């Protein structure tokens, strides 16, 4: 594993259930990003608290509507992560996903969701350190925006 960077903030962390607690939903593919997150855990790479992961076989399984549904139900941030293009365990799933999520990424601001609240990326099974970095940077940005209140979405 590459150098571990400890970027968890110790002080000023919001206890869960507090007024400005944010909830971040991560939908990750089983073969690459979920395993990458496991790798980060095995190497004890400290991360922000707010990420909650859902496992799917492939990013190709993920309908952009899941992200919209998550925002609708009150998610403050949504992260999607899968295998790097070219490395999909099912060979093509992430190519389809890439197009769909690029469109989603461009549409969400139009629906009133700040751009920092959504991200799609690629983390491989051997990239535990990268997973830590992705999570910490993304959750920090979502926390800076705070909880999201929407009437339409």
């Amino acid at each position, binding site marked *: 594993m*590459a150098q571990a960077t400890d970027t*968890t903030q*110790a002080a000023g*962390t919001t*206890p*869960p*259930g507090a007024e400005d607690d944010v*909830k971040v*939903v991560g*939908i990750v593919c089983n*073969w*690459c990003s*979920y*395993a990458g*997150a*496991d790798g*980060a*855990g*095995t190497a*004890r*790479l*400290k*991360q922000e*608290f707010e990420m*909650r*992961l*859902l*496992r*799917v*076989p*492939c990013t*190709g*399984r*993920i*309908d952009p509507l*899941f992200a919209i*549904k*998550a925002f609708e*139900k*009150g*998610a403050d941030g949504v992260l999607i992560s899968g*295998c790097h293009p*070219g*490395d*999909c*365990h*099912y*060979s*093509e*799933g992430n190519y*389809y996903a890439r197009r*769909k999520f690029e469109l989603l990424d461009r549409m969400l601001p139009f629906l009133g969701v700040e751009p920092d609240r959504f991200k799609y990326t690629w983390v*491989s*099974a*051997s990239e535990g350190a990268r997973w*830590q970095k992705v999570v910490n940077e993304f959750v920090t940005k979502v926390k800076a925006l705070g909880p999201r209140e929407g009437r339409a979405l």
Partner: protein
Amino acid sequence: MRIGVFVCHCGTNIAGTVNSKGIAARAAELKDVVHTEDLIYTCSEPGQSAIQKAIIEKGLTRVVVAACSPHMHEVTFRRTVEGAGLNPYLFEMANIREHCSWIHDDYDMATEKAYEILKMSVAKVRQLEALVPNEVSVNKDVLVIGGGVAGIQTALDLADAGLKVTIVERETTIGGTMARLDKTFPTIDCSACILTPRMVDAAQHENIEIMAYCEVDKVQGYVGNFTVDIRKKAAMVDWVKCIGCEICMQKCPAKAPDVFNVGLAETKAIYIPFPQAVPKRAAIQVEHCRWFQQGKCKVCERVCPADAIDYEQQDEYVQKEFGAIVMATGLDVFPWEEYYHEYGSGNIPDVISGLQYERMLNASGPTSGHVVRPSTQGIKGQEPEEPKTVVFIQCVGSRDESVGRPYCSSVCCMYTAKQAILTKSHAGMDTEVYVFYIDIRATGKGYEEFVKRAQTEFNVKYVRGRVSKLYEDVIDGSRKVIVRGVDTLLGKQVEVAADLVVLASGITAADGAVQLAQKLNISYDEWGFYKESHPKLRPVETNTAGIFLAGACQSPKDIPTAVAQASGTAAKVLGLLSRDKLKTSPQIAIVEQNRCVSCWKCVEVCPFSAPQKQEQRDGTFKSHIIETVCQGCGICVATCPVNCITLKGFTTDAIIDQIEELLLA
């Protein structure tokens, strides 16, 4: 529905940061949860028994275990619940270790997060259905990609066990890197002498077919049923007729770089890489051939006693079917010339790589085994000189973040010691030999003793320190390579005026490894080494069922390790192919045909062609997914606008329920 929740302590791995007992007790408040329990080591025998006891006594219909990653123990616990009579797919794991206790420090917050993760898994388990695996028949033939020592070992083990093996090798001969070595550590036995008999065994084995000068073009299918397109490259020589007499090579007027000799010599445009090649057949490198480039010559055709030259030959494609594939694609050497400008970028003739030096030491190499200074070769009227001072520099392209290679290449300390000893044997005990090292890694059987021999018996001077610069200078009328380094044990800078410098260049993945991996959908790391399924527990399998690893393509290793691994790989392949039928995962996609609107989007997007247009009794067509072909990726599920395709185990409702459980307090 009766759900049982089991929360693991995992010793202190989880319980040290998460209140396992507490969240187990809290889980009793969740709807349908009728049993909760916390266990110190759930995967242990008492832990598994506790689960089974609860299933039977409480009539549980769903089980959630909150513990480590499903990658760790999902298989274990599926077997546990099946043992108690519950369908193994009515089981879900909540990852509160890798995704919680191991990445946080705050006890209260980690506990709260673990409980949320647990709740999400309970929401998911409610959506799971009992599933029964399908069976597919299995092809027992095996493809081994790469004919180096690891590929040969695996092939021989499998062939001896009665399986039919095809070795596809992209060079004209098998043997790989080991065929280029002179002697092997720590026994100093001749590499070719131990390898070539195995090469011949492989060639003569009734169960092994060697397809040399071939490459894998395309791989389709799945475990037990791979269909592979193999390209037979045009050698411009009919290999049925060619007898390997080498006359063409002797008479060919066109020179070409000699890849086998790592650029230390030249070969001819028509070539056989080395005398013990298996198969021993000639091939023409058309980019260096006078006939193909200028339309002149054809000497080889004239002199060939077997009439084997065929300038019209084309690449041919064949398709074969296999049940399992073994990757044994081996290694390449780190291209130090592109990175180590402080060592001359390859422009100083007397600075060479370890593999080049190996060729020089080899009696059948370009200098017939004589150790010479390359700067003194090819000068009219002068014999090449023997070096009086040889310097070895270890860790060139290994253990070096600045060139993006932080890893250790495993073999360089040992081969440097070997080459140092051989230098003394070939060039005389009075030759001054220095080795600049950071550490000595001599972990194998007899390895430490071997290095000690180099230092004591052969008087090789080991200097602990790195070399900052190499440059040429003339000292007392003699052309030297000045080696400027440091001796950290003495705390002094040192300088050696060397006649020859050998860089122990590190090991990289073979050229083209990444492209090949993408054809097979196997994972690789940032340097192109193939990823094993689990670094400790599954070191020879990949995450793609049916595809295995052997040798240096997985990580740098020495010959004993590669051979041991290769036999282990063979054992795994034998295990896979020991039955006539394989169970396939039942977590696949199914179309609810009542709702299908025949838009065929699923048919278009599936990478495996699993959905088919199926004629119904009323003459209309609906989509139908072939169970044994479906890999369970879910692309069709996300594509279907009606959302009438269900992916067992990962349904849309399960995903939505997990999201809602998390977000709706």
